[in-house]
């Protein structure tokens, strides 16, 4: 009797141990698939990615024989994947909302009531969204490739999966897209507000490069390669020549490092701040 406290006389057995990451990932999966914005943004990521690739490849095909056009160094794979630069904005918006919606709707208090170890919540969310983002990013990347190649009709040249570097570019692009989504989620972990996080995300991707251009070339050329947008371009081996770029894989690692660093900062803040 001494081991039983009447203060916790429950009416059903409790599980043993304590709530685990698996429980939290199941919960995060339910959260993710139970709001419409997820399906919309994921669908749009694929559709917009494909649409932009289609326009780019159709345009190239129709002007292939225009006078004065040279096709030296033409990379059909890279061209068919250009839609990713638009798709990354949409998956980024989803990444932001996955986190910021918890705060703006107040759901975070229910979440942390069920799982007060906040780092675990963050890990579970990152894992679930990261997985979904990766699947959608790969689908976008591969479909863009196949659609683009199908639209690059003769006389334009096209690539196949066995074309040198094609696989590397497709997979690299998919990874870049998925990491960018997580990068946006990590920003929202720190900023918490939807509008602020999206502004920061778009600012880093699109505005920061133009701002840096105001610096002297000697400086610009040095720091340019660290920009997420330049890393993305390097994966596709496009961009202004004469600039130093990371190789595609190193670039992706740098991008991943940014994301992890932001998540760590976000994790520390999440644990410190009132929910």
């Amino acid at each position, binding site marked *: *009797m*001494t*081991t*039983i*406290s*009447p*203060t*916790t*006389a*429950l*009416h*059903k*057995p*409790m*599980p*043993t*141990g*304590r*709530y685990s990451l698996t*429980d*939290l990932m*199941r*919960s*995060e999966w*339910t*959260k993710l698939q*139970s*709001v*419409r*914005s997820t399906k919309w943004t994921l669908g749009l990521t694929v559709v917009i990615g494909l649409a932009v690739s289609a326009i780019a490849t159709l345009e190239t095909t129709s002007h292939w024989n225009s006078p004065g056009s040279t096709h030296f160094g033409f990379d059909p794979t890279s061209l068919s994947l250009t839609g990713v630069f638009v798709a990354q904005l949409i998956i980024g918006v989803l990444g932001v909302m996955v986190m910021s*919606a918890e705060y703006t*709707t*107040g*759901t975070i*208090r*229910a*979440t*942390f*009531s*069920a*799982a*007060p*170890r906040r780092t675990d919540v963050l890990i579970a969310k990152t894992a679930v969204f990261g997985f979904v983002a990766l699947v959608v990013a790969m689908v976008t990347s591969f479909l863009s490739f196949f659609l683009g190649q199908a639209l690059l009709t003769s006389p334009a040249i096209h690539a196949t999966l066995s074309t040198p570097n094609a696989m590397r570019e497709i997979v690299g692009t998919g990874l870049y897209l998925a990491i960018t989504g997580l990068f946006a989620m990590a920003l929202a972990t720190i900023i918490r507000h939807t509008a602020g996080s999206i502004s920061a995300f778009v600012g880093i991707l699109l505005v920061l490069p133009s701002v840096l251009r105001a610096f002297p070339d000697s400086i610009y050329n040095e720091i340019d390669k660290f920009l997420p947008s330049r890393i993305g371009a390097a994966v596709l081996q496009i961009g202004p020549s004469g600039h130093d770029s990371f190789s595609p894989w190193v670039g992706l690692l740098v991008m991943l490092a940014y994301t992890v660093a932001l998540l760590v900062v976000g994790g520390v803040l999440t644990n*410190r701040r*009132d*929910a």
Partner: protein
Amino acid sequence: MLDYIASCTSTHDRSIVYTSTRTKSRAPRPTISHAITVKLSQSSKNVDATREGIAVIEAQGLTKHYGNKVAVDQLSFKVRPGVVTGFLGPNGSGKSTTMRMIMGLDAPSAGNVTVNGRHYRDLSWPLHEVGALLEAKAIHPGRSARKHLLMLAQANRIPGRRVDEVLEMVGLSDVGRQRAGKFSLGMGQRLGIAAALLGDPEVLLFDEPINGLDPDGIRWVRTFLRSLAKEGRTVFVSSHLMSEMALTADEVVIIGKGRLIVQVSVEELLAQSSRRFVRVVSPDVNPLRVALESDGATTSVEDDGSLSVRGKDHKEIGELAAQLSVVLYELTPQSESLEEAFMELTETSIEYHGAATASVATDDSVTTREAQ
């Protein structure tokens, strides 16, 4: 009012209870717990018996600053199982902040609060142990009520059928698949209550649960809270309405400006507030007033010019008036309402607050007030 202080008993033998709680949460749950529940609900009728030794929620010197604004100020109280404990205070007195600190959502600036002897963060299965309604409609408007409950259930390994059970209990079965954004405030409250019940927890916190409810809903919540307590659970419910708490709670923790005013049983509070006084209206109250006070009564002149007399009944006052040949227009025995008692208590806290410059120690805040 100082009489209330006597009821604030302090117990120091809780550590034993806490230790056993810890042991138990890891061990397989014995079937004997049913017997305990029954025993508890019987003993809970005897308030004094359970007041000793058991405190499920315990705050000690709990303090919260937002910038240089003090929301909760050295608050200490204990919440016992088997009764409904009301958490009373005017709007903005720190009730919600205190609730959030209990739930580990806001970190205290100083002090400590535990549930079953542990910090909320350290609970193994939080929803199985504590259920809370903190604010209505803190739900993603695009998510259905069912999915909202499901994602919470999954986080604590609660089976999906329990979601349907709690939806049924709060009367939301028909709208469980609708998006929560369409819910009325009352439906939002019911959904919040459903979420609190998900893990069939022993400890329940409700922050202003009747806000936005219609009279039927209010009665439902009132009955519901009482039945939860009768099952031996710990029920801590905040409100800014004294009259509501008088109907629902067995005991109240009253705060004003983030400070504890008093923790007292509703019974004692009622006994206090039914203090009788006599309303006297006369064109010439002063001679009567002087005579009454020299005779040991206390009097006060109200805003409308009437005289409130305590310590003499209406017969004695009438006879005295006749002796003095004072004309009386009205001579009415009155009893003070609970709301008035509450107002009086919280107003005093504001005065007290303005006057006191020195800080007051945690556990002694009540006794310090006694000294005032």
